[in-house]
C-alpha cells in the first residue's frame, strides 16, 4: 500500500468530519495531502527507516508549519503563514508521518473546552451539545472520531489529558524538556509541552518516541535517554501505585469514581500494589497556575503587535499606540484579553511579590509533594481521575472563568511540576467517556506507557461503569 492510496480515504474522513459540523479542523487540503503522500513515497524509495510510515497525524494549530496557515485560532494571526517548521513537525515528517490537518483549539491554547476559538467551538465527537475539552479539543475530536489515529496537541495546564478524558482516547504529556518547543507557539513557556493523542496507547507511544529528543534550538530541552516503547508487561507485581487522597474528593462524579476504581482493580489484578498517598498542596495548583500561566502569556503575546506579521488595525489617532491598541484589542478574543490583563497585573510594580513570586514558591511546594511521593520507598506511579466530571455542556461554564479553570483541577499540578502523565479511557459515565490519569516521575514515560498498555488491554473497549 502506498501513501497515495491512503489520501483519498483520509480526505473523505476529514470532509465527513467537517460536514457533520465537528469543526475540528482549521485547515487541510487534498493538495497538501497529496504532496505529503508524494514526500513519503520519496522517503520510502530512499530506503530511510520510517517508524511512522504513512501514519496520518493532525497538528493543533499552534504548531507552526510552512505549508499551511498557523492561526492559533486567533483573529490576530488569521492568514499567517510561518516561514519555518516546528522541530516536532520536521521529526514527524522525517519519520514518515503524513501531516493531515491543522486542528482547532482554544485561542492561543487558553481554555478548557475549545469554545474560545475565533473560528467557532469544536463539538464533542459523540455528544454534539457538549464540549470535547480543551484547549486541544480539535486534535482530540479528530482522533476520537476516527479521522486520524494520532494527533499532536499541546499542554500548558492539562490541555491534552483533559480533552483525551472527555473524548475517550489516550492523551500523553511528556516530561517538560523531553520534547522541543521550537515552533510551538508559546503560551506559558515554563509549562508548555507538545503532547500526543492516540486511539491506543501504542499509537501515542510511537508518535511520542519520534518527537522526544533534545533540540539545539530549545534551551529548555534536556539530554535524556531516548524514549523507546516498552512491551506491555504480563504482570505488574512489585509495582507500587499511589492513590492521592486529594484527587478523590467527596463530591467527585460517581461515574468518574467508578471508572478510576475499575482501572485500579485492573492494576491490582495484574499484581500492582495500591497505596494511599497525600499530595497536600494540590488545592493550590489551579490558583498557582492562574498566576504563572497568564504572567508568562502576557509577555509571550506581546509580540502580536501588528508590526511584523499578522493582522494590523489602526485606531482613529493613526499613530503607533493606536496601531498597537486596536490590533491587540480587536485581534485577541475575550479569554486571551482577560489572561493578558491578569498576567500584566500580577507582574506589575507593587504586585510581583504578592502574586508572581508567591506562586513560584507554591509551585515549588507542589513539585515537592510529587518528589516525596516518588522518593525511594514511595510509589512508582500515581493513579487519579483525569477530570472531576465527564464532558460538560457547551456554554455551561463560559460565563464564569473560575468555574472553567476548575475543570483542570486534576491535571494542573502535574504541569506545574513538569512531570509526565497521561489519560487513558476508563469506561463511560451515562454514555460519556471517563479518563483515568497515570502520573510518573520525571523521564518515567517508558514505564508509564507500558503500565497504561496493560490497563488498556485489561479494560478492553470502553463500556458503561457504575
Amino acid at each position, binding site marked *: 500500500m502506498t501513501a497515495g492510496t491512503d489520501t483519498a480515504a483520509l480526505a473523505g474522513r476529514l470532509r465527513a468530519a467537517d460536514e457533520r459540523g465537528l469543526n475540528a479542523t482549521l485547515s487541510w487540503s487534498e493538495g497538501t495531502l497529496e504532496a505529503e503522500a508524494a514526500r513519503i513515497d520519496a522517503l520510502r524509495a530512499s530506503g530511510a527507516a520510517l517508524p511512522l510510515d504513512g501514519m496520518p497525524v493532525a497538528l493543533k494549530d499552534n504548531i507552526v508549519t510552512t505549508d499551511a496557515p498557523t492561526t492559533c485560532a486567533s483573529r490576530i494571526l488569521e492568514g499567517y503563514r510561518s516561514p519555518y517548521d516546528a522541530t516536532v513537525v520536521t521529526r514527524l515528517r522525517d519519520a514518515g508521518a503524513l501531516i493531515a490537518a491543522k486542528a482547532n483549539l482554544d485561542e492561543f491554547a487558553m481554555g478548557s473546552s475549545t469554545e474560545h476559538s475565533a473560528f467557532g467551538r469544536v463539538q464533542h465527537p459523540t455528544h454534539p451539545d457538549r464540549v470535547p475539552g480543551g484547549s486541544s479539543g480539535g486534535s482530540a475530536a479528530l482522533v476520537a472520531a476516527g479521522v486520524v489515529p494520532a494527533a499532536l496537541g499541546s499542554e500548558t495546564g492539562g490541555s491534552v489529558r483533559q480533552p483525551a478524558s472527555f473524548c475517550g482516547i489516550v492523551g500523553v504529556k511528556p516530561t517538560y524538556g523531553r520534547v522541543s518547543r521550537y515552533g510551538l507557539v508559546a503560551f506559558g513557556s*515554563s509549562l508548555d509541552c507538545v503532547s500526543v493523542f492516540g486511539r491506543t496507547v501504542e499509537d501515542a507511544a510511537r508518535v511520542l518516541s519520534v518527537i522526544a529528543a533534545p533540540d539545539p534550538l530549545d*534551551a529548555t530541552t534536556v539530554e535524556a535517554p531516548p524514549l523507546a516503547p516498552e512491551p506491555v508487561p504480563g504482570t505488574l507485581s512489585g509495582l507500587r501505585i499511589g492513590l492521592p487522597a486529594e484527587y478523590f474528593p467527596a463530591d467527585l462524579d460517581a461515574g468518574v469514581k467508578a471508572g478510576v476504581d475499575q482501572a485500579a482493580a485492573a492494576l491490582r489484578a495484574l499484581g500492582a500494589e495500591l497505596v494511599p498517598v497525600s499530595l497536600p498542596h494540590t488545592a493550590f495548583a489551579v490558583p498557582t497556575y492562574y498566576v504563572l500561566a497568564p504572567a508568562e502569556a502576557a*509577555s509571550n503575546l506581546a509580540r502580536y503587535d501588528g508590526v511584523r506579521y499578522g493582522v494590523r488595525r489602526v485606531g482613529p489617532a493613526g499613530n503607533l499606540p493606536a496601531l498597537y491598541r486596536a490590533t491587540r484589542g480587536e485581534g485577541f478574543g475575550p479569554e486571551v484579553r482577560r489572561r493578558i490583563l491578569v498576567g500584566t497585573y500580577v507582574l506589575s510594580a507593587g504586585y510581583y511579590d504578592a502574586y508572581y513570586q508567591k506562586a513560584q514558591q507554591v509551585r515549588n511546594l507542589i513539585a515537592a509533594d510529587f518528589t516525596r511521593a516518588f522518593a525511594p520507598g514511595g510509589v512508582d506511579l500515581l493513579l487519579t481521575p483525569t477530570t472531576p466530571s465527564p464532558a460538560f455542556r457547551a456554554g455551561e461554564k463560559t460565563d464564569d472563568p473560575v468555574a472553567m479553570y476548575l475543570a483542570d483541577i486534576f491535571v494542573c499540578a502535574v504541569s506545574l511540576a513538569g512531570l509526565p502523565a497521561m489519560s487513558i479511557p476508563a469506561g463511560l459515565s451515562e454514555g460519556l467517556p471517563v479518563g483515568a490519569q497515570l502520573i510518573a516521575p520525571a523521564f518515567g514515560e517508558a514505564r508509564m506507557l507500558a503500565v497504561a498498555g496493560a490497563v488498556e488491554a485489561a479494560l478492553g473497549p470502553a463500556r458503561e461503569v457504575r
Partner: protein
Amino acid sequence: MAWETVIGLEVHVQQATRTKMFCGCIASFGDPPNTNVCPTCLGLPGALPVPNAEAIRLAVRGALALGGTVHATSVFARKNYFYPDLPKGYQISQFDQPLSTGGAVWYESPERGRVACSITRLHIEEDAGKSLHDRYPGLTAVDLNRAGTPLAEIVSGPDLRSPAEARAYLVALKQILVYAGVSDCSMEKGTLRVDANLSIRPAGQAALGTKTEVKNMNSFANVERALTAEYERQVALLESGGRVEQVSLLFNAATGTVKPTRSKEDSHDYRYFPDPDLPPLVLHEAFIEEQRAALPELPEARRARFEKEFGVSAYHAQELTSERAVADYFEETVRAGADAKATVGWVLGEAMAGFNADGRFAVSAENLAELIAAVADGTFSLQSAKQVYAAMLAGTGRATTPRLLGAELGFVQVQDSGALAGWVDEVLAAHPGEVERFRGGEAKLMGFFVGQVMKKSGGKADPKGVAPILQKKLREG
C-alpha cells in the same frame, strides 16, 4: 552657590562575536535591511532563544578585567515594553541576578588626579533593532539586522564629579575592554553607547539631588559637552528657584544643547521576570578562573612595567599603552632587538602612519627593529631610514627587509674613506675662498664643508666619516 556634580554612566558595549546573542544570525553592520534575520530575532511565533557561549565568555572577561565578581549563577530576565524595533515585546536582559557585580576603573581625573570609579554591575542583554524616523514621511521604518546582537551593560557608581571626569572614565574603560578583547568599543560604529545620569547638589550636602538621564551622544567629547549642558541647565533651574524633574534628555550635537524627550507614561514599569525560555546561566569556578588567567596584562599594569622595564618616561608609557596594539608593537619591536628609547620615537612617530584602521601595523615589528638597528650601526642615516620606512609602506622596491630595500633604493651610507676623500678633495678645490677663511680661524665653516660633501655625494656620505677627513685635509693644507 557652589554646586557639586554627581554623574553615573550606563555603558553598553557590543561583544565582538560573529553571531547574535540568541540565534545564529551574523552580527554585522551595513548589510541590506532585514537580511541578517531569522525566526528568533524576528520574534516570530514559536521561535526560541539559545545563548551564544562566546558572548558570555567575552562578558565574563570584561567583568574580570574591571575587577568584578562573576557570579556562579545569573538569571536572564525579560524586560517588557512595546517598541516597534523590539520584536518580542520584551528585551532579554538580566535584572536581580546579573552576571557580575562590583569592580572599579582607575582613571586620570583632570581635577583630582588618579581616582577610581566604582562599577555597580555588568550584565548581558540583547540589542533592539533600528527605527528610522526620517526615511518616509509620517512613517517609521524598522530594520531588525541589529536586533538580538549581544551587549554587555556596565553600570558605574555615582562616583564621577564632572563632565570631564565622565570623559576620562570612558577613555579608561574603553582601554580596558579593548585590551581584554571584549569589544572594539567604537562609538562611531555603535559598539559602545553611553547613557549618563547627572544630578547636582550644594557642595558639602550628602543627599543626592534629582537625577536626569542624558542620551544620544555619539563621541566621548560629546558626552562631556552634553553633561556640561545638562549641568548648566540644572544649575539655572535651581538658582532661579525651580525644580529638577526626573526626565530623559536628548543631546543635540549641532546646537550643543539637551532637550527633554516626551517619554511614554508608565514606561518604567518593565514587569521584569525570569525568562522561562532560558534556565539559569551557571558558570563554573574552573571556567571563570580560566578566563581570568587568559586576561592580558591590562593598561594600568603595563604602563608601570614599561616605565620600569624599558626606562621610558611616564608620559610615553601612557601614550604607548593607550592602545593595546600600539603597546604590543612597541614591545615586540624592542624584543626583536631594537633600542627602547629609539623605538618610542619610531612607534609614536613615523610608525603611526602605518597603523591601520583595523588596529594592525603595516610594517612588522621585526622589520622596524632591523631598521632601528641599521640607524644605530650607521648603515642608514635617520633621514634615509625614514625614506626606507616610507618605501616599505608604499611597497616600493622588491626587497622585503629594510637593509636590502635600503640598498636596492640606494639609501646605504658611503663609509669608504677613499670615496669620501674624493668628494672632500672636490669640495675643497671648488671653494678656495672658504678654505682660506677656515684656515684664518672661521671654525664654523666646518658645517658648510660637511654640507657641501653631503650634497656632492647625493646624501649618501656618512657624515660621521666625512668630518675627520675634512679636518685632516684642511689642517694639511
